[in-house]
């Protein structure tokens, strides 16, 4: 227990820290660019604009980071379930006590600032999962263990879904990356991805084509199979899988029309055919693409963007912040941002693998998974590769809740990691 005497600064992973502050700084400058108005020369530190407020959020985040790094690492391990339980209570409370913002009752309002508990639920769930899987003998191929893990993930999902925050709920799917690393049979994510792909295909193409495609695919596989594998049993198995896929495709319409809510249905429809709603969601996507596309190779220059000014692109400083980067800094700037994220994600995975405690490793993979999911969905929707799901770009998007929660998420991991290097040095 001598580690607490050592200055933590020497053991923290400096590369991650640099990547993190790189993201936060670029993010802040782009929030400024998004709210900048050429007529009245908005001040970077003006507290009434999002840029000024974001600076305040960054300041408070630094304080939070210092607190996390000072706290004993055992705290996160020991109190993991407590955090989780408190989070569940808060998620229930917000359903009744929260303020209604944009049709979702998921915010606590404090004066001019609002906090969204759903953002923090990810951190608590990651800790709880790490704690649960840390127990020796947990086996992710066992149905019973998977059931408990599923329960830990699904419980906050239900509560967040009840507050009408579908985007934040979907983020919980990202835990599958950690579970895969920890031994979840590979066929489970494979089935998940296949189902998602079939779902999208069923919306875009006529059902008959997809049926024909499935039959052709399995036909080709059967033909190319080595003779000794082409048993009746295997062929029947393939036929069953193919039939299952067809049933799924048939069920898509029922799901879309019967289960999804109106605005969710629209977003899926718009992904398939942007012209059905040229003024609503379709307009957002078109404008985002125009803004990014107009940046060309080098971009129009800092504060020189035209598309991301004047409200052409909605939610410019929050969910669509990547448009500002794409427009003002071009392909070069976009590449830098994507490489920053790739670097950060890879670094987290590499660090996670080095952990000695299973708790820290599991948690590290959760962090990587959550960040990856956010980045993939957020950037994907601005370039028209993903449906419009309102989740922020980590460290870039304006907003206190998201900056706080992502920073807490990341720095708990860095704290756990600093413990590892301390142990090694001893």
């Amino acid at each position: 227990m001598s580690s607490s005497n050592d200055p933590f600064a020497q053991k923290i992973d400096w590369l991650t820290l640099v990547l993190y502050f790189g993201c936060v700084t670029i993010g802040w400058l782009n929030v400024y660019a998004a709210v900048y108005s050429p007529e009245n020369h908005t001040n970077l530190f003006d507290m009434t604009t999002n840029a000024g407020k974001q600076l305040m959020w960054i300041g408070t985040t630094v304080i939070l980071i210092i607190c996390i790094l000072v706290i004993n690492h055992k705290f996160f391990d020991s109190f993991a379930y407590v955090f989780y339980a408190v989070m569940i209570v808060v998620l229930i409370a917000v359903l009744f006590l929260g303020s209604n913002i944009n049709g979702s009752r998921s915010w606590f309002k404090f004066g001019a600032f609002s906090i969204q508990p759903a953002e923090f639920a990810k951190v608590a769930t990651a800790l709880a999962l790490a704690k649960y899987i840390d127990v020796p003998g947990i086996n992710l191929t066992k149905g019973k263990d998977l059931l408990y893990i599923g329960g830990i993930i699904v419980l906050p999902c239900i509560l967040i879904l009840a507050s009408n925050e579908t985007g934040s709920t979907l983020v919980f799917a990202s835990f599958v990356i950690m579970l895969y690393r920890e031994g979840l049979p590979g066929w489970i994510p494979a089935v998940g991805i296949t189902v998602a792909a079939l779902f999208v295909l069923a919306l875009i193409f006529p059902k008959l084509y997809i049926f024909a495609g499935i039959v052709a695919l399995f036909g080709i596989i059967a033909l190319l199979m080595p003779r000794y594998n082409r048993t009746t049993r295997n062929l029947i198995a393939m036929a069953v899988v193919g039939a299952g896929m067809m049933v799924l495709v048939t069920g898509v319409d029922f799901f879309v029309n019967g289960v999804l809510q109106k605005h969710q249905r629209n977003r899926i429809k718009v992904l398939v055919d942007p012209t059905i709603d040229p003024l609503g969601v379709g307009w957002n996507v078109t404008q985002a693409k125009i803004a990014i596309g107009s940046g060309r190779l080098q971009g129009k220059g800092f504060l020189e963007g035209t598309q991301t000014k004047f409200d052409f692109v909605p939610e410019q400083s929050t969910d669509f912040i990547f448009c500002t980067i794409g427009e003002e800094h071009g392909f070069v700037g976009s590449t830098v941002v994507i490489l920053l994220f790739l670097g950060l994600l890879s670094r987290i995975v590499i660090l996670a693998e080095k952990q000695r405690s299973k708790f820290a490793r599991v948690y590290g993979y959760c962090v990587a998974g959550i960040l990856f999911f956010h980045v993939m969905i957020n950037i994907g929707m601005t370039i028209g590769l993903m449906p419009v799901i309102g989740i922020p770009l980590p460290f870039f998007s304006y907003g206190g809740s998201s900056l706080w929660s992502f920073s807490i998420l990341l720095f708990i991991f860095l704290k756990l990691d600093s413990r590892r290097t301390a142990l090694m040095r001893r």
Partner: protein
Amino acid sequence: MLENRKWVIIGVFILVGITYLARLFYLQVLDDTYSLGASKNSIKRVVEIPYRGQVYDRNNQLLVYNMPVYDLYVTPKQVRIPDTTAFCRMMNLSLSDFDSIMGLAKNYSAVKPSLFIKRLSKEDFARIQDALVDYQGFEPMISSMRTYPAHTLSNALGYVSEITKRQLENQDLPYYRQGDYVGHNGLEEQYEEQLRGRRGVKFMMQNVRGVNKGSWKDGEFDTLAVAGQNLITGIDVDVQQYADSLMRNKVGSVLAIEPATGEILVSVSAPTYDPNLLSSRHFSKNYRALIKNPYKPLINRPVMASYRPGSTFKLIQALIAQQQGSLFPNMVYGHGGSPMRCHCRGGNNLRGAIQNSCNPYFYQVFRKFMYFNGDPNTFKASAIGLRSWHDMSEKFGMADRLGVDLPSELKGNLPTVKYYDKVYGGEKSWKFSNVYSLSIGEGELLISPLKLANLAAIIANRGWYIIPHYIKGFGKTGVGVPTEYLERHETGIDYKYYLPIIDGMRAAVARGTVTPLANINGIELCGKTGTSQNAKFGHKFDHSIFIGFAPMNNPKIAVAVFVENAGWGGKAAASVAALVAERYLKRKTEAKKLEAQVLASNYLPALSRLPGAAKPAAPKPVYPKPVAPQKDSAAAKPLMTATKPKSLTLATVASGN
């Protein structure tokens, strides 16, 4: 080795990264259609709002059309006004109004246009058009205003006004924006999607000064506006206007249906108002005045008001009892043994009982109906009897909403066994003697004029109906009519049982409960009067009801008339119904004496007797003038006086462009 799975995971990260970089490379470097050139052009979307569909009556007379008006937009940053005082004088604005509008516009955006003044008439616009050249930053946009040349049918048509917050949030597809116009109530709301058409969007390139540089990407993303469809209704506007004039100084409804098709011919809700009031620039002021009016002209009485149907309900009693086998046309009941008073001499058979509306007769009919199941326990027997009474009456469309094509139809009440269990506190707590008022259409029954008009149509058809509806087609008769308005609904009562009823109804008009003047020569009206108890509940008079159809054989019109506070049904209501039927069948009015009598009668309740009318100086309801039969259908020229803006006062400044 599980550890090797990290390569799979990092591989996925890199794969997604490469895909996105490739997509960005395509968007930003290869695909130069997204390039807007070095001039910093931006893309503006121009919204094209198509003309809303017009509304016609069954004879192709216009009920609603669009009059072009002008909205004036201001872009604060571009505004150059040499002389503000002169400008305000030209616009009929006070300086403070001008300042507040400009303030709002600046608040919204310095560079995007805001609405400055809306709905300038052609004349007003012509006056300022030339002068506007001297003032920069103002841009007129053509738009349109709903106009009602026939000045009638206000409640059934509904109105068009800015979308409400609730509607904005509850839309199925996110079609509407803040400030859009949308149909409210009535047919405008019911057929909103077809009437409005589909808005088009054009993407235009503009430079930083807002000058158009042509369409973007050769219009690849543009969508064309689709014009709204014209709605043809089954309304006969001549008869409608005539009925309006007959209902002057009365509160109530007239609803007429063509029995063979279910098309609504006449739909009067009295007192009424000129629909142009709600399309003018002074919408809010006019709407407030109508809301405050103690006679409640905004209630669409034919579908929203519910009354005890009174003796008109005896028709259903007679039909279902015959079908059940508990009543035969030749059965005679006297007045003895009934707790009800009667004005006739008694000793009627079924025809006579309908002709004279004999209360004790129908008391006995209903009693026999209820106990026909023969259960020795009278409580149990009553429950069984009422259940079959409810089920058989339901077939006449009396229980649920009928499904007319208006959004505002209310349900009324056809009591069920469950209902009485609740009222009397438990099963078997009530029996026939508690509910016998139903036999003469009183008690807990609540039925809308629409349903009673439909009952008249059912009897006219001898046993079936088509759900009453306003629509006759989109663009052309028969096109786009919802299938539910083509289906026949059977009542489950045999044809032969209708015949004695119809005989009785004819006799009621010819020599029964109906005032003699209403038996107009040559139209062969059959009908049944009703007097809805109202005096009993603290009012001075009962409500007068009449339902009927004409002619007796091969009926062309079924009609229900309600006149509130007008006493017994044989006079006020029957007279209006007879005149409406005559006008529809003969296209002219020969019963001048009856007409004069109806026009002269005033059944408006005194204002002091109305709830919530403390002030004697309540605004007067708006009545249409009585109309003479129109010989020339082209005579319905648009009358613009009601809508012509008198001055250029500001209505609102909406945000958005």
